[in-house]
């Protein structure tokens, strides 16, 4: 819990730094604060986890593992922010502070033990993001993204809240443990209100993770928001949303699996196909990544379809793999866009000749997203497939495999552009921060892919 407090104070401190125009201190202070948050989490690992503050939050291994992942990803995103907003903007302190607030919300979503806390966490996370999506005030796309995200987000929060209210009506409590007791003690006599509540929560959470058919906001928002904000949304926010999703369903709703499973199965299949097939026809790299993030949400839903003790590990590894690869992809995109002004596939033509190591990094990231062995993405897909096959959902895995093969088409387009379409271009300048982020993300991707034993069995 001290980690959450540290983080909130840090965000306020950063705001004050902005007030005193201490621009150069923003990044070091934020990083220092995040690192100390990490340390606090690691210290907490050993202790016995008990629900804190009248059972509001519970920092068990599950919550700590996902929190650490979110904080690490935020550090990577912040490192990429160096010089990103300097051109013309005077609101950099707000940017850092909002990211930190959003992260605080994300940590609450991973660690909630009370439905009220889930709602508050999601709101803290989202409200900061509504502003962040529109942080480029003069950019139409950014404004559109912010408005769309806000409207759709508010709408989905409505569903979520209504679902929470129905669960409360049926079980008489917001506390996860008591709701679980309610379900376990009389599985035959669960009130119809409760079923309605589950469905509404399913819809609300599907909105948040960007699963079809509630995904329509996702491509426009991911495409319109500034690249770094998109990176943050696709990595940290998505990870946290899935962690919350799985936590709720694994903790409370497993006995009622027969009720919500058909709906979730349909959603999963639709998400996979919609994400993949629309990603196929995109000509912009950024938009392709936006649609592919929908299809990855589909793969991650597998863990909830096959909900069980191994699901948390699968989601953790998949989210880590997907986020690391996304950081590399978006980081490279920032560099390319800065040089060429375009985020289309053609903008990557001939990159391998001038920036061989950058191209190699992006290639590894794409292979990881496509799920090729020796990268983290493969281990993630492998665990998802194993989990679902253990549930005897062979048809679902066959459909997923078809989608994985489709995915090759669009992930390889950028590899093809970089390596096989020669073009005379200038070398991109990659500064030290970017180099650090790319190297760290690629090494972690390969390490997770080659020797995942160090992370399996953690949660």
């Amino acid at each position: 819990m001290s980690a959450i407090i540290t983080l909130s104070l840090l965000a306020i401190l950063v705001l004050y730094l902005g007030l005193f125009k201490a621009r150069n201190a923003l990044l070091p202070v934020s990083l220092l604060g995040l690192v100390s948050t990490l340390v606090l989490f690691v210290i907490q690992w050993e202790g016995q986890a008990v629900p804190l503050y009248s059972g509001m939050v519970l920092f068990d291994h599950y919550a700590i593992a996902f929190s650490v992942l979110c904080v690490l990803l935020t550090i990577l995103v912040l490192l990429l922010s160096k010089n990103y907003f300097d051109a013309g903007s005077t609101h950099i302190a707000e940017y850092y502070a909002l990211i930190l607030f959003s992260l605080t919300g994300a940590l609450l979503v991973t660690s909630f033990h009370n439905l009220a806390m889930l709602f508050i966490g999601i709101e803290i996370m989202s409200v900061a993001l509504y502003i962040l999506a529109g942080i480029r005030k003069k950019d139409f796309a950014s404004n559109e993204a912010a408005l769309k995200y806000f409207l759709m987000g508010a709408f989905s929060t409505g569903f979520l809240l209504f679902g929470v209210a129905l669960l409360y009506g049926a079980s008489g409590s917001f506390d996860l443990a008591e709701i679980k007791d309610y379900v376990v003690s009389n599985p035959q006599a669960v009130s119809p209100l409760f079923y309605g509540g589950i469905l509404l929560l399913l819809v609300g959470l599907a909105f948040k993770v960007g699963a079809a058919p509630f995904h329509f906001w996702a491509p426009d928002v991911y495409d319109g928001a500034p690249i770094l904000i998109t990176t943050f949304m696709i990595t940290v926010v998505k990870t946290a949303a899935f962690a919350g999703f799985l936590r709720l369903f694994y903790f409370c709703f497993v006995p009622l699996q027969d009720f919500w499973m058909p709906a979730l199965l349909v959603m999963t299949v639709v998400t996979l196909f919609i994400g993949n097939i629309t990603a196929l026809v995109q000509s912009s790299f950024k938009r392709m990544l936006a649609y592919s993030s929908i299809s990855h949400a589909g793969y991650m839903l597998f863990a909830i379809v096959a909900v069980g003790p191994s699901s948390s590990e699968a989601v953790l590894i998949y989210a880590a793999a997907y986020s690391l690869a996304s950081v590399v992809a978006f980081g490279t995109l920032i560099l390319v866009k800065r040089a060429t002004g375009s985020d289309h596939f053609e903008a990557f033509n001939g990159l391998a000749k001038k920036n061989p190591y950058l191209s190699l990094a992006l290639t590894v990231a794409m292979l990881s997203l496509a799920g090729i062995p020796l990268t983290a993405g493969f281990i993630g897909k492998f665990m998802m497939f194993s989990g679902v096959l253990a549930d005897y959902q062979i048809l679902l895995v066959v459909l997923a495999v078809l989608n994985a093969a489709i995915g090759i088409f669009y992930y390889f387009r950028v590899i093809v552009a970089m390596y096989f379409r020669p073009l005379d271009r200038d070398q991109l300048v990659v500064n030290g921060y970017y180099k650090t982020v790319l190297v760290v993300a690629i090494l972690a991707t390969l390490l997770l892919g080659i020797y995942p034993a160090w992370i399996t069995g953690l949660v």
Partner: protein
Amino acid sequence: MDNLFILLLLPVLGAIALAFVKQAKAARQLALLVSLVSLGLTIPFLSGFVPDASIQFEQQFAWIPALGIHFHIGIDGISLPLVLLTNGLVPLIILSAFSYDYKGGFYALVLFMQAGLLLVFTALDAFAFYVGWEIALIPIYFICALWGGENRIRVNLKFFIYTFLGSLLMLIAIIYLHLQVPSGDYELTSFYQLALDSSTQRWIFWAFFLAFAIKMPIFPFHTWQPDTYTEAPTAGTMLLAGIMLKMGVYGLIRWLIPVAPLGFAAYGHLALVLCIIGVVYGSIIAFKQQDVKRLVAYSSIAHVGLIGAGIFAWNVQGVQGAMIQMVNHGISVVGLFFVLDIVTRRLGTREMSDMGGIAKAAPALAILFLVIVMGAVGLPLTNGFVGEFLLLMGIYQYGIWYSVFGGLTLILGAVYLLRMYQKVMLGDANAKTSDFADVRGTEWLVLAIIAVLVIGIGIYPKPLLHISEAAVTELIGKVSLINN
């Protein structure tokens, strides 16, 4: 020195080092050195091998213990010839690329692929097998797409997606089998002992079969093959045809049939018929080709079809024939593609009509090429004869008509390969071919080594057959025990 880990790790380390070498000359020398050391490291396995049915030189460590995955590798009579083939052909392939100015990246990919191939041929754990299977695919994709011909991007993407889809289906089967294993591991031996019911084994059969059939390729899964072989740089074609397609053949013997014997009992016949169709189809289309590289690509479909048919006949002669023919085909096809590379590079064309009369200007090439063609045709006293004879004998025991149609490879193969030889080497010289420079240096060395192997194995194939005999006999016995 018989440490399998070192054998697998050496090419990887070589590849990492080579990735940083910018100079073409230094790169190829280092690559050759690494591949020769690999070949040298193979010798202790050959000399220390006891030709019985056991698995030897076993090594393992717990890779992902939480998921029951072990990095378990070892060599038996079925994998040893293929390990030899891989480590023997890679130096030749590297030597054959000396005429090009490839930088370190190219050789790094070749060596990386070698590591993947070796893992496939030695893996005793299904997960490790799958990882090796995919690792071999990535480098060859880049080799073919970076240094290939005009249509390389489209053709190679098709190739990649085709094979990737096949291997993902295999992955499903592997995970499914793993979930049935009581001890919760991915061991080959655990898979052998599963004894699932017939309907499960049937779909397992198809999941594995598709992966292997696409790789080999067996008709009608071959559509990627001619384009990919033709568009690839010669070294890439050699890797694809010489070694990589053997992954599929090896998979049939090692994984498909013993793991799903009841599936094999149900569909083995159909698979054999598909293989025979491939033989006839490949031969007829090869006969019509004007492009020499395409001709050899189609001939490869025919030859592989015969090897597959020998395996699906599932008797000692058939499988032993397949074992030795895998090695022979690797040697011959590397020789053929190298000769064609020399010819097309000097003439600037792949069309047979633009060639002819080279023999006069280049007698050494003419003789070496003749030996290699004879080996590919399967003339007695060459390596091809031993393999095809055994294969046809095995298929004959299965059904006489299959061997009649399978025997067409011998006849049709002789027709189109000799016709190619005639059109390329003999006849009247034209303006270009009259001052054709003869082979020399590394070119001569590579072709001479291949010619010696062609004749050597043809005259005395016994040691090679002896390696795999016990293992093959035992495996066949095991499967027929279940099926009866």
